[in-house]
Every structure is written in C-alpha cells, then in structure tokens.
C-alpha cells in the first residue's frame, strides 16, 4: 500500500523544484519573485510535515511574506524585466 502522506510530500518537492527553476528562468522578475515565494511556502509546509512547526512559521513569515515584499519593493525602484544582454549564453552553460 502506498503511503499517502509520502505521495503528497513527493508532489510538493516536485512543485518546489519546478517553482525554483521558474524563479531562475522567468524574464519577468515580478513573476520570478512569486516563484521564489512559492518555494518558501512549500518549504514551510514540508517543515511542518517534518515536525518542525516553529521553523515552518519562520519560513512562512520571513521567506514567503517579508523577503518577497522586499524583492517587490526593489523591483518597483529598478526595472521589471531582465534585459537581453545578460542572456547571451544558453541556460546549460550559465552557471
């Protein structure tokens, strides 16, 4: 029998990895910030499943709410889209 909590955990890890890749790859920085906040949110739920509710609370407030807000304020003062000059190399070499 498949343990269902474990299925949910696998799905959440998958969502987290996808959101992290999108947060790096999206040209629209506002969307990238949302992706980063999604990583933090899923991480906080995972922390809760791993029986660390205090870390989960801190991750949800600091990671998902406060740092996303700080990034959004920074984007508001600079520019919303990544420029093309920084993107000459393909993603496979851009480490």
């Amino acid at each position, binding site marked *: 029998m498949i343990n269902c909590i474990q299925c949910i955990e696998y799905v959440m890890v998958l969502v987290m990895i996808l959101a992290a890749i999108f947060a790096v790859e999206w040209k629209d920085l506002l969307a990238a910030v949302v992706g980063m906040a999604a990583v933090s949110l899923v991480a906080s739920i995972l922390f809760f499943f791993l029986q*660390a509710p*205090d870390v989960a*609370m*801190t991750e949800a407030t*600091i990671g998902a709410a*406060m740092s996303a807000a700080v990034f959004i304020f920074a984007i508001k003062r600079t520019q919303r889209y990544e420029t093309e000059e920084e993107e000459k190399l393909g993603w496979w070499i851009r480490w």
Partner: protein
Amino acid sequence: MVMKRALAILTLLIIGYWMASALANVPFGADKMLVAQYYLNHVKAQTGAVNAVTAVVVNYRGFDTLGEVTVLFIASTGVAALLWRKKRERTAETEGSIVLTTGARLLFAFIVLFGAYIFIHGHLTPGGGFPGGATIATAFLMLYLAFSAYEIPHRSFEVTEGLAGMGYVAVGLIGLAIGSYFLFDWIWQTWGWGHSNIGRLFSAGFIPVIYTIIGIKVGTELSGIVDSMVKEGGE
C-alpha cells in the same frame, strides 16, 4: 572564460572531495552529541520550560541570542541609513481594492494577536520571539500594502524598540547582580517562581519575559525596515 570555469569546477571538486572525506567517518543518523541528551534530560529541572528548543535558545545560549538581536538591530539601522533622505514620503498612487482594505482592517488585530501568542507561549509551544515578531511585522506590511497613506507611528516605535533592547540587557544585568553570571535565570533559580506549574503560562523563569521583549523588538524593527523600503525620497 573557459579557463576560469574549468578552474572553478576543479576548485569545487577539490573542496567537495575534502568535505566528503571529512564527513565520511561520521555515521549518518547516529546520535553522537552528548550535549543534546544532557539538555533533554535536565531542561525541566534547570529552566522549567517544556519546549526544549526555547530553553536552549533563551536560557542556555542566551548570550548568543542577544548577539542575534544585535545583528538584527544593525541590519535595520543599515537599511535606514542606506535609504535615508531628507524628505521621504509614500508614492503609491492607487488605494488597495475594497477586498484588500476590508480584509486588512479585519485581519490586522488577529495577526498581531497571533504573533503575540507565539512569543508569549514560546516556552510551551513551538515558536518564540523571532517568528512572533516577524508575524507582527507582516501585519504592518499588510497595512502598508492596503492603504496608500498609511505610516507606522515612528516616534513610539523607535522608543519601544530602544526600550526593548535595553530591557533585554537589564534582565541580564539583574542576573549578573543576583547570581553569578550575565543572563542568569534569577526568576527561576533564585526566586523559585513557577516551580509548581511547569507546562503552564507562568513558569520557566525569565524565558517568557525575554521572549516578549525579543518579540516586541523584532516586530518594531522589521516594521521599520518595511517602512524605510516602501517610502521613496526626493533628492
């Protein structure tokens, strides 16, 4: 360019091999720490806290936590100093939608209450001063996002933050005067308050006192950081 990257990969491989070989002899998952078991065995008798994490953070490692609070204070001072302008005001053009403003009005008190609950009950339930203070700061962040003209009461926030910081040091200094060292738990060990009701609110010596101070300090500090980031100054 390629040379640089090859060099970077080589360095990473060397460091990775070095760390892996250093950690290879440590058995995974085995309990090699003696101090953790010591804390778990003695936490109730020595500090009165049910939540051992809080006891370690505030009581056994209280001086370290004072350092953390200082780091946060320096960070907020740095943000305020970097973004300082003579005349700064909010520049948001549009008020939040009716859903956002009504929700913010409705939820603000509950979020602050939940944050206060987290840090007041730090010695009983998971959480403590830092998550509680951050939760309170998110309540103020919500007000900033909802209302285009809202500002925190700067004067009282600064005074509260300073008093909270001084209160932490004062509690530590009273411990130095009564007991033998800085941040000595005088309420629990000298006065012996709350020995009969471990696991209830009025127990655990100075842990609730210090966590309340930390929660207030972190909440006002993070609200101040949000404030200095939201407002834009003219030249």
